[in-house]
Protein backbone atom coordinates (compact mmCIF):
# COMPACT_ATOMS: atom_id res chain seq x y z
CA UNK A 1 0.00 0.00 0.00
CA UNK A 2 2.80 2.36 0.81
CA UNK A 3 4.20 2.57 -2.75
CA UNK A 4 1.00 3.97 -4.21
CA UNK A 5 0.33 7.60 -3.57
CA UNK A 6 -3.29 8.01 -2.58
CA UNK A 7 -5.32 9.56 -5.34
CA UNK A 8 -6.43 13.06 -4.52
CA UNK A 9 -10.04 12.96 -3.49
CA UNK A 10 -12.17 14.64 -6.15
CA UNK A 11 -13.76 17.71 -4.60
CA UNK A 12 -17.53 17.76 -4.45
CA UNK A 13 -18.71 20.71 -6.51
CA UNK A 14 -19.23 24.00 -4.73
CA UNK A 15 -21.82 25.03 -7.33
CA UNK A 16 -21.37 28.75 -6.75
CA UNK A 17 -22.18 29.39 -10.43
CA UNK A 18 -25.50 27.59 -10.21
CA UNK A 19 -26.29 29.62 -7.13
CA UNK A 20 -25.55 32.93 -8.83
CA UNK A 21 -27.68 32.02 -11.84
CA UNK A 22 -30.59 30.91 -9.68
CA UNK A 23 -30.26 34.08 -7.63
CA UNK A 24 -30.36 36.26 -10.74
CA UNK A 25 -33.34 34.29 -11.99
CA UNK A 26 -35.15 34.80 -8.67
CA UNK A 27 -34.60 38.57 -8.83
CA UNK A 28 -35.79 38.62 -12.46
CA UNK A 29 -38.96 36.72 -11.57
CA UNK A 30 -39.66 39.23 -8.82
CA UNK A 31 -39.10 42.17 -11.20
CA UNK A 32 -41.41 40.48 -13.69
CA UNK A 33 -44.05 40.25 -11.00
CA UNK A 34 -43.65 44.00 -10.24
CA UNK A 35 -44.02 44.81 -13.91
CA UNK A 36 -47.07 42.56 -14.11
CA UNK A 37 -48.73 44.35 -11.19
CA UNK A 38 -48.03 47.76 -12.73
CA UNK A 39 -49.21 46.81 -16.20
CA UNK A 40 -52.43 45.35 -14.85
CA UNK A 41 -53.26 48.16 -12.44
CA UNK A 42 -51.96 51.36 -14.06
CA UNK A 43 -51.27 50.27 -17.64
CA UNK A 44 -47.61 51.10 -17.14
CA UNK A 45 -44.47 49.61 -15.69
CA UNK A 46 -44.43 50.93 -12.13
CA UNK A 47 -41.98 53.76 -11.73
CA UNK A 48 -40.50 52.15 -8.66
CA UNK A 49 -39.77 48.87 -10.39
CA UNK A 50 -36.13 49.56 -11.15
CA UNK A 51 -35.55 50.86 -7.64
CA UNK A 52 -37.19 47.79 -6.14
CA UNK A 53 -35.53 45.38 -8.51
CA UNK A 54 -32.10 46.93 -8.21
CA UNK A 55 -32.26 47.20 -4.44
CA UNK A 56 -33.40 43.59 -4.10
CA UNK A 57 -30.78 42.49 -6.63
CA UNK A 58 -28.06 44.51 -4.90
CA UNK A 59 -29.02 43.11 -1.50
CA UNK A 60 -28.94 39.58 -2.78
CA UNK A 61 -25.63 40.13 -4.53
CA UNK A 62 -24.20 41.37 -1.24
CA UNK A 63 -25.62 38.34 0.58
CA UNK A 64 -24.18 36.11 -2.14
CA UNK A 65 -20.70 37.65 -1.82
CA UNK A 66 -20.73 37.22 1.96
CA UNK A 67 -21.85 33.64 1.50
CA UNK A 68 -19.20 32.90 -1.13
CA UNK A 69 -16.51 34.31 1.15
CA UNK A 70 -17.55 32.92 4.51
CA UNK A 71 -19.46 29.74 3.65
CA UNK A 72 -18.13 28.66 0.25
CA UNK A 73 -19.40 25.09 0.50
CA UNK A 74 -22.92 26.09 1.45
CA UNK A 75 -25.91 24.68 -0.31
CA UNK A 76 -26.48 26.47 -3.65
CA UNK A 77 -30.26 26.56 -3.47
CA UNK A 78 -31.22 27.90 -0.06
CA UNK A 79 -30.48 31.58 -0.75
CA UNK A 80 -32.15 31.79 -4.21
CA UNK A 81 -35.29 30.01 -3.01
CA UNK A 82 -35.66 32.27 0.00
CA UNK A 83 -34.97 35.32 -2.17
CA UNK A 84 -37.83 34.42 -4.47
CA UNK A 85 -40.27 33.80 -1.61
CA UNK A 86 -39.29 37.06 0.07
CA UNK A 87 -39.53 38.94 -3.24
CA UNK A 88 -42.97 37.57 -4.06
CA UNK A 89 -44.13 38.63 -0.61
CA UNK A 90 -42.81 42.14 -1.31
CA UNK A 91 -44.67 42.24 -4.62
CA UNK A 92 -47.94 41.17 -3.02
CA UNK A 93 -47.60 43.81 -0.28
CA UNK A 94 -46.81 46.41 -2.95
CA UNK A 95 -49.82 45.29 -4.94
CA UNK A 96 -52.10 45.56 -1.88
CA UNK A 97 -50.86 49.07 -1.13
CA UNK A 98 -51.55 50.10 -4.73
CA UNK A 99 -55.17 49.04 -4.72
CA UNK A 100 -57.38 52.13 -4.55
CA UNK A 101 -59.61 51.36 -1.65
CA UNK A 102 -59.81 52.49 1.93
CA UNK A 103 -59.91 49.03 3.42
CA UNK A 104 -57.28 48.43 6.09
CA UNK A 105 -55.70 45.68 3.99
CA UNK A 106 -54.78 48.31 1.43
CA UNK A 107 -53.88 51.20 3.72
CA UNK A 108 -51.84 49.20 6.22
CA UNK A 109 -49.75 47.39 3.60
CA UNK A 110 -46.43 49.18 3.45
CA UNK A 111 -43.96 47.79 0.91
CA UNK A 112 -41.30 50.30 1.83
CA UNK A 113 -41.00 49.24 5.44
CA UNK A 114 -41.05 45.59 4.35
CA UNK A 115 -38.20 46.29 1.93
CA UNK A 116 -36.35 48.03 4.75
CA UNK A 117 -36.86 44.99 7.00
CA UNK A 118 -35.61 42.75 4.21
CA UNK A 119 -32.47 44.86 4.12
CA UNK A 120 -32.01 44.51 7.87
CA UNK A 121 -32.72 40.79 7.55
CA UNK A 122 -29.96 40.36 5.00
CA UNK A 123 -27.57 42.38 7.12
CA UNK A 124 -28.33 40.03 10.02
CA UNK A 125 -27.93 37.04 7.69
CA UNK A 126 -24.49 38.30 6.67
CA UNK A 127 -23.45 39.14 10.24
CA UNK A 128 -24.47 35.67 11.41
CA UNK A 129 -22.36 34.08 8.67
CA UNK A 130 -19.41 36.36 9.38
CA UNK A 131 -19.35 36.00 13.15
CA UNK A 132 -20.60 32.45 13.59
CA UNK A 133 -17.78 30.54 11.94
CA UNK A 134 -18.54 27.28 13.67
CA UNK A 135 -22.13 26.46 14.52
CA UNK A 136 -20.99 24.12 17.28
CA UNK A 137 -20.30 27.21 19.37
CA UNK A 138 -24.07 27.28 19.82
CA UNK A 139 -23.97 23.90 21.53
CA UNK A 140 -22.05 25.46 24.39
CA UNK A 141 -24.87 27.96 24.79
CA UNK A 142 -27.56 25.29 25.18
CA UNK A 143 -28.92 26.40 28.53
CA UNK A 144 -28.29 30.10 27.89
CA UNK A 145 -30.37 29.75 24.75
CA UNK A 146 -33.08 27.95 26.69
CA UNK A 147 -33.26 30.69 29.31
CA UNK A 148 -33.17 33.41 26.66
CA UNK A 149 -35.96 31.69 24.75
CA UNK A 150 -38.16 31.51 27.82
CA UNK A 151 -37.51 35.15 28.73
CA UNK A 152 -38.34 36.27 25.20
CA UNK A 153 -41.45 34.15 25.23
CA UNK A 154 -42.85 35.62 28.44
CA UNK A 155 -41.59 39.18 27.87
CA UNK A 156 -44.87 40.42 26.38
CA UNK A 157 -46.54 39.61 29.70
CA UNK A 158 -44.37 42.13 31.53
CA UNK A 159 -46.46 45.21 32.30
CA UNK A 160 -45.56 48.43 30.39
CA UNK A 161 -43.25 46.49 28.06
CA UNK A 162 -45.82 44.11 26.61
CA UNK A 163 -48.64 45.26 24.36
CA UNK A 164 -51.79 43.60 23.18
CA UNK A 165 -52.73 43.85 19.50
CA UNK A 166 -55.54 42.12 17.64
CA UNK A 167 -56.42 40.02 20.66
CA UNK A 168 -52.99 38.48 21.18
CA UNK A 169 -50.49 39.70 23.73
CA UNK A 170 -47.36 38.89 21.79
CA UNK A 171 -45.74 42.28 21.27
CA UNK A 172 -43.25 44.31 23.18
CA UNK A 173 -42.84 47.99 22.57
CA UNK A 174 -39.37 49.41 22.19
CA UNK A 175 -39.41 53.14 22.83
CA UNK A 176 -38.60 55.02 19.66
CA UNK A 177 -38.38 51.94 17.47
CA UNK A 178 -41.83 50.46 17.44
CA UNK A 179 -42.93 46.97 18.29
CA UNK A 180 -41.29 43.62 18.15
CA UNK A 181 -42.64 40.09 18.41
CA UNK A 182 -40.12 38.43 20.71
CA UNK A 183 -41.71 35.00 20.16
CA UNK A 184 -40.20 34.90 16.68
CA UNK A 185 -36.69 35.07 18.13
CA UNK A 186 -37.65 32.81 21.02
CA UNK A 187 -38.32 30.06 18.47
CA UNK A 188 -34.73 30.16 17.26
CA UNK A 189 -33.31 30.14 20.79
CA UNK A 190 -35.58 27.29 21.82
CA UNK A 191 -34.66 25.13 18.82
CA UNK A 192 -30.99 25.61 19.74
CA UNK A 193 -31.84 24.63 23.31
CA UNK A 194 -33.85 21.56 22.28
CA UNK A 195 -31.07 20.38 19.97
CA UNK A 196 -28.33 20.84 22.56
CA UNK A 197 -30.40 19.27 25.31
CA UNK A 198 -31.38 16.25 23.25
CA UNK A 199 -27.82 15.59 22.10
CA UNK A 200 -26.93 15.14 25.75
CA UNK A 201 -30.02 13.21 26.76
CA UNK A 202 -31.05 11.25 23.73
CA UNK A 203 -29.57 7.93 24.74
CA UNK A 204 -31.55 7.71 27.93
CA UNK A 205 -34.68 8.92 26.17
CA UNK A 206 -34.16 6.41 23.37
CA UNK A 207 -33.15 3.33 25.29
CA UNK A 208 -34.71 3.26 28.73
CA UNK A 209 -38.26 2.05 28.99
CA UNK A 210 -40.57 -0.86 28.43
CA UNK A 211 -42.23 -2.28 25.37
CA UNK A 212 -45.99 -2.39 25.44
CA UNK A 213 -47.94 -3.74 22.46
CA UNK A 214 -46.24 -2.09 19.49
CA UNK A 215 -44.66 0.94 21.06
CA UNK A 216 -41.73 1.45 23.37
CA UNK A 217 -42.91 3.37 26.36
CA UNK A 218 -40.43 5.70 28.06
CA UNK A 219 -39.90 5.69 31.79
CA UNK A 220 -42.15 7.98 33.77
CA UNK A 221 -39.31 10.17 35.03
CA UNK A 222 -38.06 10.78 31.47
CA UNK A 223 -41.37 12.45 30.73
CA UNK A 224 -40.23 15.50 32.70
CA UNK A 225 -38.90 17.62 29.82
CA UNK A 226 -41.90 16.81 27.65
CA UNK A 227 -44.25 17.82 30.40
CA UNK A 228 -42.37 21.05 31.04
CA UNK A 229 -42.47 22.03 27.36
CA UNK A 230 -46.11 21.08 27.27
CA UNK A 231 -46.80 23.29 30.25
CA UNK A 232 -44.92 26.22 28.74
CA UNK A 233 -46.69 25.95 25.40
CA UNK A 234 -50.06 25.72 27.10
CA UNK A 235 -49.07 28.72 29.19
CA UNK A 236 -48.39 30.65 25.98
CA UNK A 237 -51.75 29.57 24.68
CA UNK A 238 -53.61 30.69 27.77
CA UNK A 239 -51.74 33.79 28.89
CA UNK A 240 -50.94 35.31 25.51
CA UNK A 241 -53.86 33.88 23.53
CA UNK A 242 -51.37 32.83 20.90
CA UNK A 243 -52.56 29.52 19.52
CA UNK A 244 -50.05 29.47 16.68
CA UNK A 245 -46.85 29.87 18.69
CA UNK A 246 -48.08 27.31 21.18
CA UNK A 247 -48.66 24.70 18.49
CA UNK A 248 -45.40 25.61 16.78
CA UNK A 249 -43.34 25.29 19.93
CA UNK A 250 -44.73 21.99 21.09
CA UNK A 251 -44.72 20.41 17.62
CA UNK A 252 -41.09 21.34 17.11
CA UNK A 253 -40.08 19.82 20.42
CA UNK A 254 -41.88 16.57 19.62
CA UNK A 255 -40.34 16.45 16.15
CA UNK A 256 -36.85 16.92 17.57
CA UNK A 257 -37.53 14.28 20.20
CA UNK A 258 -38.50 11.93 17.39
CA UNK A 259 -35.44 12.79 15.31
CA UNK A 260 -33.19 12.22 18.31
CA UNK A 261 -34.69 8.98 19.58
CA UNK A 262 -36.52 7.48 16.57
CA UNK A 263 -39.28 6.44 18.93
CA UNK A 264 -42.84 6.70 17.70
CA UNK A 265 -44.08 6.59 21.27
CA UNK A 266 -42.88 10.17 21.85
CA UNK A 267 -44.94 11.38 18.91
CA UNK A 268 -48.01 9.57 20.19
CA UNK A 269 -47.50 10.88 23.71
CA UNK A 270 -47.01 14.39 22.32
CA UNK A 271 -50.11 14.33 20.17
CA UNK A 272 -52.23 12.98 23.03
CA UNK A 273 -50.89 15.59 25.45
CA UNK A 274 -51.48 18.46 23.06
CA UNK A 275 -54.91 17.26 21.98
CA UNK A 276 -55.90 16.88 25.62
CA UNK A 277 -54.57 20.32 26.49
CA UNK A 278 -56.21 21.97 23.51
CA UNK A 279 -59.60 20.38 24.20
CA UNK A 280 -59.38 21.44 27.83
CA UNK A 281 -58.40 24.96 26.78
CA UNK A 282 -61.28 24.95 24.31
CA UNK A 283 -63.71 24.12 27.08
CA UNK A 284 -62.38 26.70 29.49
CA UNK A 285 -61.31 29.65 27.36
CA UNK A 286 -63.52 31.64 25.06
CA UNK A 287 -61.03 32.62 22.41
CA UNK A 288 -59.96 29.03 21.76
CA UNK A 289 -63.57 27.91 21.64
CA UNK A 290 -64.43 30.61 19.09
CA UNK A 291 -61.64 29.42 16.83
CA UNK A 292 -63.04 25.90 16.91
CA UNK A 293 -66.57 27.08 16.12
CA UNK A 294 -65.27 29.06 13.18
CA UNK A 295 -63.25 26.07 12.02
CA UNK A 296 -66.24 23.72 12.09
CA UNK A 297 -68.86 26.04 10.57
CA UNK A 298 -67.15 28.85 8.70
CA UNK A 299 -70.10 29.49 6.41
CA UNK A 300 -72.62 29.92 9.23
CA UNK A 301 -74.08 33.45 8.70
CA UNK A 302 -74.25 34.12 12.43
CA UNK A 303 -70.55 33.34 12.79
CA UNK A 304 -69.75 35.32 9.66
CA UNK A 305 -71.27 38.50 11.07
CA UNK A 306 -69.80 38.16 14.54
CA UNK A 307 -66.83 40.31 15.46
CA UNK A 308 -63.79 38.04 15.29
CA UNK A 309 -65.97 35.46 13.54
CA UNK A 310 -65.39 33.62 10.32
CA UNK A 311 -65.54 36.62 7.98
CA UNK A 312 -61.79 36.72 7.49
CA UNK A 313 -61.50 33.01 6.85
CA UNK A 314 -64.43 33.06 4.42
CA UNK A 315 -63.04 36.07 2.55
CA UNK A 316 -59.82 34.13 2.15
CA UNK A 317 -61.68 31.08 0.88
CA UNK A 318 -63.72 33.27 -1.50
CA UNK A 319 -60.51 34.81 -2.77
CA UNK A 320 -58.89 31.46 -3.46
CA UNK A 321 -62.12 30.27 -5.05
CA UNK A 322 -62.28 33.22 -7.42
CA UNK A 323 -58.64 32.59 -8.25
CA UNK A 324 -59.35 29.08 -9.43
CA UNK A 325 -56.70 27.10 -11.24
CA UNK A 326 -54.84 29.89 -13.01
CA UNK A 327 -55.68 32.87 -10.81
CA UNK A 328 -56.99 36.28 -11.78
CA UNK A 329 -53.50 37.51 -12.62
CA UNK A 330 -51.36 39.80 -10.51
CA UNK A 331 -53.09 43.12 -9.92
CA UNK A 332 -56.40 41.94 -11.35
CA UNK A 333 -58.12 40.39 -8.35
CA UNK A 334 -59.43 41.97 -5.18
CA UNK A 335 -57.27 40.53 -2.43
CA UNK A 336 -57.63 43.79 -0.49
CA UNK A 337 -61.09 42.56 0.52
CA UNK A 338 -59.51 39.95 2.81
CA UNK A 339 -58.83 41.35 6.25
CA UNK A 340 -55.09 41.22 7.03
CA UNK A 341 -54.31 40.17 3.45
CA UNK A 342 -50.78 41.53 3.84
CA UNK A 343 -49.87 39.40 6.85
CA UNK A 344 -51.75 36.33 8.05
CA UNK A 345 -53.74 35.94 4.85
CA UNK A 346 -51.07 36.70 2.27
CA UNK A 347 -51.32 33.10 1.15
CA UNK A 348 -54.98 33.56 0.29
CA UNK A 349 -54.15 36.81 -1.54
CA UNK A 350 -51.52 34.92 -3.54
CA UNK A 351 -54.11 32.21 -4.21
CA UNK A 352 -56.52 34.71 -5.69
CA UNK A 353 -54.03 36.29 -8.05
CA UNK A 354 -51.81 33.32 -8.94
CA UNK A 355 -54.36 30.55 -8.61
CA UNK A 356 -53.77 26.98 -7.60
CA UNK A 357 -50.88 26.75 -10.06
CA UNK A 358 -49.07 29.60 -8.34
CA UNK A 359 -49.82 28.32 -4.84
CA UNK A 360 -48.41 24.91 -5.75
CA UNK A 361 -45.26 26.60 -7.06
CA UNK A 362 -45.00 28.56 -3.79
CA UNK A 363 -45.42 25.43 -1.71
CA UNK A 364 -42.78 23.74 -3.87
CA UNK A 365 -40.39 26.60 -3.08
CA UNK A 366 -40.97 26.08 0.65
CA UNK A 367 -40.67 22.32 0.25
CA UNK A 368 -37.35 22.73 -1.53
CA UNK A 369 -35.96 24.96 1.23
CA UNK A 370 -37.05 22.38 3.79
CA UNK A 371 -35.61 19.57 1.69
CA UNK A 372 -32.24 21.34 1.56
CA UNK A 373 -32.38 21.75 5.33
CA UNK A 374 -33.21 18.11 5.98
CA UNK A 375 -30.54 17.11 3.49
CA UNK A 376 -28.06 19.20 5.49
CA UNK A 377 -29.21 17.39 8.61
CA UNK A 378 -28.67 14.04 6.90
CA UNK A 379 -25.19 14.94 5.70
CA UNK A 380 -24.06 16.68 8.89
CA UNK A 381 -21.23 15.02 10.76
CA UNK A 382 -21.98 15.88 14.36
CA UNK A 383 -25.20 15.01 16.22
CA UNK A 384 -25.80 18.61 17.32
CA UNK A 385 -25.98 19.95 13.78
CA UNK A 386 -28.08 16.98 12.71
CA UNK A 387 -30.64 17.92 15.31
CA UNK A 388 -30.33 21.68 14.82
CA UNK A 389 -30.65 21.51 11.03
CA UNK A 390 -33.51 19.04 11.34
CA UNK A 391 -35.24 21.23 13.91
CA UNK A 392 -34.82 24.47 11.96
CA UNK A 393 -36.12 22.92 8.75
CA UNK A 394 -38.98 21.34 10.64
CA UNK A 395 -39.98 24.59 12.29
CA UNK A 396 -40.09 26.28 8.87
CA UNK A 397 -42.20 23.48 7.38
CA UNK A 398 -44.45 23.28 10.43
CA UNK A 399 -45.02 27.03 10.34
CA UNK A 400 -46.03 26.91 6.67
CA UNK A 401 -48.32 23.97 7.42
CA UNK A 402 -50.03 25.69 10.36
CA UNK A 403 -50.73 28.94 8.54
CA UNK A 404 -51.59 27.44 5.14
CA UNK A 405 -53.70 24.79 6.85
CA UNK A 406 -55.44 27.56 8.79
CA UNK A 407 -56.07 29.75 5.76
CA UNK A 408 -57.47 26.82 3.78
CA UNK A 409 -59.54 25.70 6.79
CA UNK A 410 -57.80 22.34 7.04
CA UNK A 411 -57.02 23.01 10.70
CA UNK A 412 -58.33 25.73 13.05
CA UNK A 413 -56.90 29.09 12.05
CA UNK A 414 -54.09 30.37 14.23
CA UNK A 415 -52.31 33.64 13.78
CA UNK A 416 -48.87 32.83 12.42
CA UNK A 417 -46.84 34.57 9.78
CA UNK A 418 -46.17 32.91 6.46
CA UNK A 419 -42.37 32.74 6.61
CA UNK A 420 -40.65 35.38 4.44
CA UNK A 421 -43.90 36.56 2.82
CA UNK A 422 -46.02 38.19 5.50
CA UNK A 423 -45.48 41.81 6.35
CA UNK A 424 -43.71 42.06 9.66
CA UNK A 425 -40.16 42.80 10.68
CA UNK A 426 -39.63 40.42 13.59
CA UNK A 427 -40.54 37.29 11.68
CA UNK A 428 -38.48 38.34 8.67
CA UNK A 429 -35.40 39.01 10.78
CA UNK A 430 -35.74 35.77 12.75
CA UNK A 431 -36.24 33.75 9.59
CA UNK A 432 -33.22 35.28 7.88
CA UNK A 433 -31.13 34.32 10.91
CA UNK A 434 -32.61 30.83 10.68
CA UNK A 435 -31.55 30.63 7.04
CA UNK A 436 -28.06 31.85 7.96
CA UNK A 437 -27.77 29.01 10.47
CA UNK A 438 -28.89 26.48 7.87
CA UNK A 439 -26.39 27.89 5.37
CA UNK A 440 -23.63 27.73 7.96
CA UNK A 441 -24.40 24.09 8.75
CA UNK A 442 -24.73 23.08 5.10
CA UNK A 443 -21.32 24.63 4.55
CA UNK A 444 -19.88 22.48 7.33
CA UNK A 445 -21.66 19.37 6.07
CA UNK A 446 -20.59 19.70 2.43
CA UNK A 447 -17.02 20.71 3.12
CA UNK A 448 -14.71 17.81 2.27
CA UNK A 449 -13.57 16.08 5.44
CA UNK A 450 -9.98 16.33 6.57
CA UNK A 451 -7.93 13.53 5.05
CA UNK A 452 -6.95 10.55 7.11
CA UNK A 453 -3.33 9.48 7.29
CA UNK A 454 -3.09 6.93 4.56
CA UNK A 455 -0.24 4.60 5.47
CA UNK A 456 -1.83 2.45 8.08
CA UNK A 457 -0.36 -0.92 7.31
CA UNK A 458 -2.80 -3.14 5.54
CA UNK A 459 -5.69 -0.78 5.69
CA UNK A 460 -6.73 0.30 2.24
CA UNK A 461 -8.53 3.58 2.14
CA UNK A 462 -10.79 4.46 -0.73
CA UNK A 463 -12.67 7.61 -1.04
CA UNK A 464 -14.57 9.28 -3.73
Amino acid sequence: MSDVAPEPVPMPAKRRGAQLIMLALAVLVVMGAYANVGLAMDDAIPSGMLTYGLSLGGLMLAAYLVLAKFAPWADPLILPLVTLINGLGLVMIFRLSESDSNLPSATLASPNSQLMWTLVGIVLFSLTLIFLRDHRALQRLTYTAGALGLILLVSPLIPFLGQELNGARIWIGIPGLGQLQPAEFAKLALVIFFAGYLVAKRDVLALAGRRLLFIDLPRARDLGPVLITWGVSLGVLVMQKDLGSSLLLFGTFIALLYIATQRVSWVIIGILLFAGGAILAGLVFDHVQQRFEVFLNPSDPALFDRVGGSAQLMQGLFAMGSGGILGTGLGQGHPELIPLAFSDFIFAAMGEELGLTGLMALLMLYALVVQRGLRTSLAARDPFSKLLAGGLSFILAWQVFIIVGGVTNLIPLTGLVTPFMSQGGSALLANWILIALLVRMSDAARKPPPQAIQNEGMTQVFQR
Partner: protein
Amino acid sequence: MSELTLLLIRLAFLAVLWFFVIAAVGVIRTDLFGSRTAPAGPRKGAKPAKPAAKPKNKKGEPRQLVVTGGPLQGTTINLTETPITIGRANDATLVVSDDYASSRHARLFPQDGQWIVEDLGSTNGTYLDRSKVTRPTPVPLGVPIRVGKTVIELRK
Protein backbone atom coordinates in the same frame (compact mmCIF):
# COMPACT_ATOMS: atom_id res chain seq x y z
CA MET B 1 -53.87 47.03 -21.55
CA SER B 2 -56.02 44.53 -23.43
CA GLU B 3 -57.50 41.44 -21.84
CA LEU B 4 -55.51 39.20 -24.15
CA THR B 5 -52.16 40.75 -23.28
CA LEU B 6 -52.92 40.44 -19.60
CA LEU B 7 -53.95 36.82 -20.04
CA LEU B 8 -50.70 36.09 -21.83
CA ILE B 9 -48.67 37.89 -19.16
CA ARG B 10 -50.46 35.94 -16.44
CA LEU B 11 -49.78 32.59 -18.09
CA ALA B 12 -46.18 33.58 -18.82
CA PHE B 13 -45.62 34.54 -15.19
CA LEU B 14 -46.94 31.21 -13.92
CA ALA B 15 -44.75 29.43 -16.46
CA VAL B 16 -41.71 31.38 -15.29
CA LEU B 17 -42.51 30.56 -11.67
CA TRP B 18 -42.63 26.86 -12.46
CA PHE B 19 -39.53 27.17 -14.61
CA PHE B 20 -37.73 28.43 -11.52
CA VAL B 21 -38.97 25.49 -9.46
CA ILE B 22 -37.89 23.02 -12.15
CA ALA B 23 -34.51 24.71 -12.52
CA ALA B 24 -34.04 24.45 -8.76
CA VAL B 25 -34.85 20.76 -8.89
CA GLY B 26 -32.35 20.48 -11.76
CA VAL B 27 -29.61 21.92 -9.57
CA ILE B 28 -30.16 19.20 -7.00
CA ARG B 29 -30.81 16.49 -9.57
CA THR B 30 -27.86 14.45 -8.40
CA ASP B 31 -29.41 14.45 -4.96
CA LEU B 32 -32.62 12.95 -6.17
CA PHE B 33 -31.51 10.56 -8.86
CA GLY B 34 -27.89 9.81 -7.96
CA SER B 35 -24.81 10.90 -9.85
CA ARG B 36 -24.43 9.89 -13.43
CA THR B 37 -20.76 9.02 -13.37
CA ALA B 38 -19.43 6.34 -15.65
CA PRO B 39 -18.47 3.19 -13.81
CA ALA B 40 -14.86 3.57 -12.83
CA GLY B 41 -12.37 0.88 -13.68
CA PRO B 42 -10.55 -0.86 -10.88
CA ARG B 43 -8.86 1.94 -9.01
CA LYS B 44 -5.16 2.14 -8.65
CA GLY B 45 -5.17 1.92 -4.93
CA ALA B 46 -7.12 -1.29 -5.05
CA LYS B 47 -4.61 -3.57 -6.71
CA PRO B 48 -1.44 -3.35 -4.72
CA ALA B 49 -0.52 -4.91 -1.45
CA LYS B 50 -0.02 -8.47 -2.39
CA PRO B 51 -1.46 -10.41 0.44
CA ALA B 52 1.39 -11.42 2.70
CA ALA B 53 0.63 -15.06 2.28
CA LYS B 54 -0.98 -16.03 -0.97
CA PRO B 55 -4.48 -17.18 -0.29
CA LYS B 56 -4.59 -20.88 -0.01
CA ASN B 57 -6.85 -21.10 -3.00
CA LYS B 58 -9.20 -23.49 -1.40
CA LYS B 59 -12.07 -24.18 -3.68
CA GLY B 60 -15.01 -21.92 -3.29
CA GLU B 61 -13.19 -19.41 -1.15
CA PRO B 62 -13.67 -15.79 -2.19
CA ARG B 63 -10.57 -13.79 -3.00
CA GLN B 64 -11.95 -10.44 -3.96
CA LEU B 65 -14.52 -7.98 -2.79
CA VAL B 66 -16.00 -6.07 -5.73
CA VAL B 67 -18.14 -2.96 -5.54
CA THR B 68 -20.88 -3.52 -8.11
CA GLY B 69 -23.09 -0.53 -7.45
CA GLY B 70 -22.97 3.00 -6.09
CA PRO B 71 -20.43 5.77 -6.50
CA LEU B 72 -17.43 3.48 -5.85
CA GLN B 73 -18.51 1.03 -8.55
CA GLY B 74 -15.64 -0.97 -9.98
CA THR B 75 -13.48 -0.83 -6.88
CA THR B 76 -12.01 -4.14 -5.82
CA ILE B 77 -10.35 -5.10 -2.58
CA ASN B 78 -8.26 -8.24 -2.24
CA LEU B 79 -9.37 -10.32 0.66
CA THR B 80 -6.77 -11.30 3.20
CA GLU B 81 -7.19 -12.48 6.72
CA THR B 82 -7.94 -8.98 7.97
CA PRO B 83 -11.54 -7.93 8.56
CA ILE B 84 -12.96 -5.25 6.29
CA THR B 85 -14.99 -2.39 7.65
CA ILE B 86 -17.35 -0.33 5.53
CA GLY B 87 -18.59 3.12 6.49
CA ARG B 88 -18.20 6.85 6.23
CA ALA B 89 -15.45 7.10 8.85
CA ASN B 90 -12.02 7.80 7.44
CA ASP B 91 -10.52 4.74 9.10
CA ALA B 92 -12.90 2.31 7.42
CA THR B 93 -11.40 -0.07 4.87
CA LEU B 94 -13.96 0.94 2.30
CA VAL B 95 -14.80 4.60 2.82
CA VAL B 96 -18.14 5.37 1.24
CA SER B 97 -19.18 9.01 1.03
CA ASP B 98 -22.85 8.31 1.17
CA ASP B 99 -25.37 10.09 3.37
CA TYR B 100 -27.31 6.87 3.77
CA ALA B 101 -24.38 4.98 5.28
CA SER B 102 -23.31 5.27 8.92
CA SER B 103 -19.74 6.10 9.87
CA ARG B 104 -19.15 2.51 11.00
CA HIS B 105 -21.75 0.69 9.02
CA ALA B 106 -20.81 -2.96 8.54
CA ARG B 107 -17.93 -5.39 8.95
CA LEU B 108 -16.84 -8.41 6.93
CA PHE B 109 -14.55 -10.93 8.56
CA PRO B 110 -13.32 -14.41 7.77
CA GLN B 111 -14.19 -17.32 10.00
CA ASP B 112 -13.57 -21.00 9.29
CA GLY B 113 -13.01 -20.35 5.60
CA GLN B 114 -16.19 -18.33 5.30
CA TRP B 115 -16.72 -14.60 5.17
CA ILE B 116 -19.22 -13.28 7.62
CA VAL B 117 -21.05 -9.94 7.34
CA GLU B 118 -22.07 -8.12 10.48
CA ASP B 119 -24.04 -4.90 10.80
CA LEU B 120 -22.42 -2.52 13.27
CA GLY B 121 -25.62 -0.87 14.44
CA SER B 122 -26.04 1.25 11.34
CA THR B 123 -28.97 3.61 10.96
CA ASN B 124 -30.25 2.33 7.64
CA GLY B 125 -29.23 -1.29 7.91
CA THR B 126 -27.15 -3.68 5.84
CA TYR B 127 -28.84 -6.00 3.41
CA LEU B 128 -27.59 -9.40 2.24
CA ASP B 129 -29.43 -10.01 -1.00
CA ARG B 130 -32.92 -8.89 0.06
CA SER B 131 -32.88 -9.67 3.75
CA LYS B 132 -31.71 -7.34 6.47
CA VAL B 133 -28.60 -8.45 8.31
CA THR B 134 -29.54 -8.66 11.98
CA ARG B 135 -26.84 -11.06 13.17
CA PRO B 136 -23.48 -12.09 11.74
CA THR B 137 -24.36 -13.98 8.59
CA PRO B 138 -22.14 -16.00 6.23
CA VAL B 139 -21.85 -14.46 2.77
CA PRO B 140 -22.08 -16.82 -0.22
CA LEU B 141 -20.15 -15.98 -3.40
CA GLY B 142 -21.76 -13.48 -5.72
CA VAL B 143 -24.58 -12.46 -3.39
CA PRO B 144 -24.97 -8.66 -3.23
CA ILE B 145 -24.50 -6.88 0.08
CA ARG B 146 -26.10 -3.44 0.18
CA VAL B 147 -24.79 -0.63 2.36
CA GLY B 148 -26.59 2.65 1.68
CA LYS B 149 -26.26 3.22 -2.05
CA THR B 150 -23.25 0.92 -2.35
CA VAL B 151 -23.56 -2.71 -3.44
CA ILE B 152 -20.66 -5.09 -2.94
CA GLU B 153 -20.20 -8.78 -3.54
CA LEU B 154 -17.55 -11.44 -2.98
CA ARG B 155 -15.90 -13.06 -5.95
CA LYS B 156 -13.32 -15.70 -6.55
